[in-house]
């Protein structure tokens, strides 16, 4: 667990998180992260989950879902995963009949050593996901160091033990030549960050050479919800920061 430090220092400085990647905090290992999206934006949310976390390296990923609960019948596409730099062979796709089964299987996968990430997709209310269930997941993730990502489509945020909660939306891309759709672009909003400051919004575009999402060119964090500057730096008495905060 990180202390009440600035978000930027909470980012692991590993080789998968170079400084130039994106200014939004990465999805840390050993925690539970919730990613909200609309059903149509599920691909964007998945791309964010798969590339912003510790999944980008190697190791097994367990993707769990309850097909009966999903209104849009979708499958992972191996070609699409490979484009995001994820070898499809790392992914084990588990389909359960009920959401309780999914939580149980996800918990078991999170406790298993060698599993890097557990990706659970839910849609709708997800009644069985309550504080107790989320706390169980958090404990399992902390014990094993796996990253648990819970994708919630068309759902109201609910209090839980998650480390971060995001909303992901597809964003208009920068058109390529001949009005072709450009590289994936998403809008990420940090709704909640345990031990940090929430409320940031970022516009991210896919960098195909680097194989990661980067801040959209020439765009500061979007206006909207105010991005507060970290208190630590203001305490340090940096004049520039102070001035900007006043402004």
């Amino acid at each position, binding site marked *: 667990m990180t202390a009440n430090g600035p978000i930027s220092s909470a980012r692991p400085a590993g080789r998968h998180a170079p400084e130039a990647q994106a200014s939004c905090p990465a999805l840390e290992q050993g925690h539970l992260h919730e990613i909200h999206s609309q059903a149509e934006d599920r691909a964007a949310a*998945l791309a964010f989950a798969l590339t912003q976390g510790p999944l980008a390296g190697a190791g097994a990923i367990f993707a769990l879902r309850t097909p009966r609960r999903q209104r849009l019948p979708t499958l992972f596409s191996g070609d699409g995963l490979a484009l995001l730099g994820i070898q*499809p*062979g790392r*992914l084990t796709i588990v389909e359960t009949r009920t959401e309780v089964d999914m939580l149980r299987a996800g918990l078991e996968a999170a406790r298993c050593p060698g599993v890097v990430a557990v990706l659970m997709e839910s849609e709708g209310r997800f009644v069985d996901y309550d504080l107790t269930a989320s706390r169980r997941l958090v404990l399992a993730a902390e014990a094993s160091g796996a990253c648990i990502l819970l994708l919630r489509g068309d759902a109201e945020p609910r209090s839980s033990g998650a480390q971060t909660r995001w909303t992901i*939306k597809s964003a208009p891309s920068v058109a390529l030549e001949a009005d072709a759709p450009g590289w994936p672009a998403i809008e990420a909003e940090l709704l909640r960050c345990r031990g940090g400051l929430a409320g940031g919004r970022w516009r991210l575009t896919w960098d195909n050479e680097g194989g990661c999402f980067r801040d959209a060119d020439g765009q500061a964090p979007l206006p909207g919800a105010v991005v507060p500057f970290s208190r630590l730096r203001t305490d340090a008495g940096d004049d520039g920061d102070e001035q900007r905060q006043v402004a």
Partner: protein
Amino acid sequence: MGTSSDRSLDGVAPEPLALVARVGSALRLAAVDRQAVEQGLAAGMTLADARARCPTLVTRPADPVADAQALDHLLEAMRHFTPMVALDAPNGLILDISGCSHLFGGPKALAQQARAIAGYASRHAFGPNAMAARALARHGGSGGDVAALPVAALELDDGGLAALRRAGLRSIGDLAQRPMGMIAARFGEQAVTRLRQILGEAPSPIAPRRPSAPIRAEARFPEPIARTEDVMDVIEDLLDQAARQMEARKLGGRRFVIRLLRSDGARQGLAIETGQPVRDPAAVLRLLRERIDTMADPLDPGFGFDAVLLAVPRVEPLAERQQAMDGEAQAAEEGIVALVDRLGIRLGPDNVRRLQPCDRHLPEGAQRLLPATQSRQQLWPTEEDRPPRPLLLFDPPQPVAVIAGVPDGPPQRFRWRDRLHEVRLAEGPERIAAEWWRRRAGHQPGGAGKTRDYYRIEDSDGRRYWMFRHGLFGEETEIRWYLHGLFA
């Protein structure tokens, strides 16, 4: 005793039959039946020659693998007569019937029964040792006299045989009268070895194939036991015994079957399968508990169980592995295999799957989901100069209503799930033709199925879709559009 079987069926076929195989660039006869032999055909002849001699010849392609399997079955069947049965390559069996023949009414009666069981036309011979029996069965005439055998029975190469014939040596008997040293000097050491084996002067051991004992363990109780925990304790004990048996033979089980015999005669079965061969009792026990948890009606002991039987019907080689220096990575891998097994037993193996690439043309056929226990790890093939593929595919594709500017152009707006989407950007088409080579009439016009034109589009909300037009304008009366995927 040697039984040499050739492959022709007992003379029911009115036409001569031969099996043909491709040798080099020519089709040659691999085996012939009795009628074909009578017509003057022999194995090794080219098919063209054989057809010239016998126009009514019926041919079938030779299948050596199936032949080997059939011979294996025959070998198992011959265990009826003696435990010492050996394969006599390429197409014979050697039975050691010392001390067994009187049980079947003498050697002749035994041979008759064996040939009846085999069901094929076959030749047999008795010999004092394996090599003599083999030589008599393959090259002998009616008598059992080794000395009268032709020198071909030595099975030397063509050069050696020609040299023997040039020297005027036609039978084994001729050769046996010469000094061995001279034969070795002129015709090679092998000739002497074979000769001495046929004459019985040198040993010709056989390597009988022994049936591998099935791995099983059982426990019978003087008093029936009823508590599930007690039963599990007994099963653990049985698994321990089985593990010791498997360890001695360097095997691991892929399938474990437990049978519980109740005191009132009812039987209950439990079976589990694993993705990797295992023999660790704790791992198997964990899977068994998982299986019991998922059963609709749990173990019903009634008045108690009398006996518990364990069998491991499917085994695979499992060598004892040395702990690698990076033991952690290995432990992680084993942990994942165990997890996949556990989830597979609880949720069904068809619900724990991995993506496998397929060499197919259509996007939905280019991958398939295989149960994780069967899938192989392989690199995903990537094509550089191909438009990108979406992250999620719709299965099945979603029909949409589309308005396109020009008949052949990209869509301008479309209606999906009761919402109108304005197309902001579009790229395409990427034309993917139907797989005509997979269809029966695919090479004929209109028989191949519909061509798809794929477009990558982005709507005004910034969502990117993969959409295709099913069929070409001018060929179809009604053109349908489908959404096939979602891009990030």
